[in-house]
């Protein structure tokens, strides 16, 4: 079995709710928006792992927390790819121990498994590691600076990280990245500005900007949702090609189950800051076990009017992550909710070797880790 590139364990990202003046005087307890509230999964080498959920379920925050673009408030993220030398990892761990972020045992366990504990890295080491962990953003219309040429946009990560010996070397690297992102010939695009190219090409520029540092792991946050349907699969195919050619591993974040279905290897369904079901894509989509997954799959519009399928339309909208319901967080909208669901939170249960579900209705073969 191939090794884990990413291992997320009980990740938490809580944002404090700002208190008003009066509230702070009456010393009400600090409230939190629990955007990510205990998420665990792993991504194997060269795997495409997909997080799916409605807006506000915490999928983007999870992706950002793995890269530490937002600081996690709890849990661990281990990165098992290349990036830092053994010496650098050792230094980082020692610093973390001296700051009492890690105990000696944890650091040793981490070192012996050949992983880096991302959440405990000091800033300078994180910067080095981020060369190997990059992000592709959702909106190619908003994420590219209109005043910079495509060359400047793609070369910026090199400048920031002080890479490339001279201008000629940088140009070569930018050319290679553009070429790999399918903007061919690169010379033709390099000196243009974002407004001069189409939406699909803009997204390729975004991908080139991530590729230029030769990363190993990419977080792709809804990379095709802003694009016209006719060019979406071009971008998806490009991402698959890059996986073959460069051995990339992806965390793919989307709200679109049908895209996740055709693109990913494994899928995790998120609801209100937690993964409720996780398993191989085909198994989850064809045999969903959690009531939320079932409902979500049933309402995906099908591009064929001859297919009449029954829809499970959930009442209401998702609750506010500042007021997470007790017990199973899905129970207020669940068509099958029982008394137990209102008070006790279900534990993940394996229903097959790699497929687990958190629901009291599901009796599995044993607890997940």
């Amino acid at each position: 079995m191939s090794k884990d590139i990413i291992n997320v364990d009980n990740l938490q990202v809580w944002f404090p709710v700002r208190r008003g003046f009066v509230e702070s005087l009456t010393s009400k307890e600090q409230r939190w928006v629990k955007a990510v509230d205990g998420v665990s999964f792993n991504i194997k080498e060269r795997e495409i792992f997909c997080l799916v959920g409605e807006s506000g379920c915490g999928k983007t925050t999870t992706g950002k927390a793995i890269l530490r673009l937002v600081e996690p408030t709890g849990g661990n993220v281990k990165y098992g790819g290349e990036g830092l030398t053994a010496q650098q990892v050792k230094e980082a761990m020692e610093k973390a121990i001296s700051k009492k972020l890690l105990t000696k045992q944890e650091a040793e366990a981490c070192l012996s498994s050949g992983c880096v504990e991302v959440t405990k890295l000091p800033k300078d080491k994180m910067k080095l590691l981020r060369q190997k962990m990059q992000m592709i953003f959702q909106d190619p219309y908003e994420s590219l600076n209109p005043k910079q040429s495509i060359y400047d946009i793609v070369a910026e990560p090199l400048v920031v990280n002080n890479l490339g010996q001279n201008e000629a070397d940088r140009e070569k690297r930018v050319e290679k990245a553009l070429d790999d992102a399918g903007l061919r010939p690169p010379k033709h695009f390099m000196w243009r500005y974002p407004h001069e190219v189409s939406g699909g090409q803009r997204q390729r520029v975004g991908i080139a900007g991530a590729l230029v540092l030769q990363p190993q792991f990419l977080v792709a946050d809804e990379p095709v949702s802003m694009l016209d349907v006719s060019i979406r699969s071009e971008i998806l195919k490009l991402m698959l090609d890059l996986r073959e050619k460069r051995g990339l591993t992806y965390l793919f974040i989307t709200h679109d189950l049908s895209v996740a279905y055709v693109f990913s290897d494994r899928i995790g369904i998120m609801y209100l800051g937690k993964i409720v079901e996780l398993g191989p894509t085909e198994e989850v989509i064809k045999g969903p076990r959690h009531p939320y997954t079932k409902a979500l799959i049933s309402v995906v519009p099908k591009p064929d009017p001859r297919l009449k399928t029954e829809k499970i339309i959930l009442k209401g909208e998702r609750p506010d992550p500042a007021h997470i319901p007790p017990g199973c967080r899905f129970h207020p909208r669940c068509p099958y909710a029982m008394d137990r669901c209102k008070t006790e939170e279900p534990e993940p249960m394996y229903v097959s070797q790699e497929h687990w579900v958190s629901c009291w209705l599901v009796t599995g073969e044993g607890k997940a880790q």
Partner: protein
Amino acid sequence: MSLLEVNDLKTYFKTQEGTLKAVDGISFNLEKGQAMGLAGESGCGKTTAALSIMKLLPANGYIAGGSINFMGQDMAKVTGEKLRAIRWRDISIIFQGAMNALNPVKRVGDQITEPILLHEKVDEATAEKRVKELFELVGINPSRIREYPHEFSGGMRQRVMIAMALACRPKLVICDEPTTALDVMIQAQILTLLKNLQQELELAMIIISHDLSVLAETCELLSIMYAGKIVERSSAIEVFANPQHPYTKGLIAAFPNIKGERRMPASISGNPPNLIKPPPGCRFSDRCYMAQDLCKQEEPSLIEVLPGHFAACHFVKPKGV
């Protein structure tokens, strides 16, 4: 006579670079109580076509030709008071992005009573009663009419927009990407609501969307637009079961189907043509896998392939008409 007959409609925009032919000769009919989907990529002219029907074009846009026959009047020619009397009373529109279409400093109830008081000789109490009925119809608690838009969630705001569109009991409602900004679950709620309302109130509807799968679930009729033209038009079932135009085929194949086989959808490479200087011949020829010399020179006209099924391609031949 149909409720709406659009005939060779041309809507152009004056821009600095020249005249942009956003809609360039489209025709279709819509009967009372029918729902038609208008699909196409961004920039194909689908929204412009709909705005032309309501004459809500921006200042540099104008109707350059054709007619829009709505209930016996040519909307292309109607202006002034007469136009104002038709707008919202007989035709209304649900705009894209309900977040921005509501006035943030007015109570939602007041925003809906406004068109009722303008168009009908009723007092405020009657209008308010109507708003409460409308709220019930679209599934909002009637006690919320005195709230402001920010107190509603995205899906609820879209319901408010729908209630507003229905305020004067229109015959035709245009929905411009009604669910684009919404989550799948809310999308399903809104689409079910629109479909029920359409059947209950015998509304005619034009639903504009780039998402064929949304239209597949809501419309009986389907028109596919490409670069300012309708390239295929028929019943939705017929278009999906028996697509004729290469663009339609490509577009359908571009949608992943969660109920189908697990494979990567197809893509249509290339970009739509510039509509300021559209190429001669078929506008899709640059991206078409079937294109021949003929396609680059001569523009195909919309022909009836099967009864009620039209397509504009040199390579489709009428079958049994």
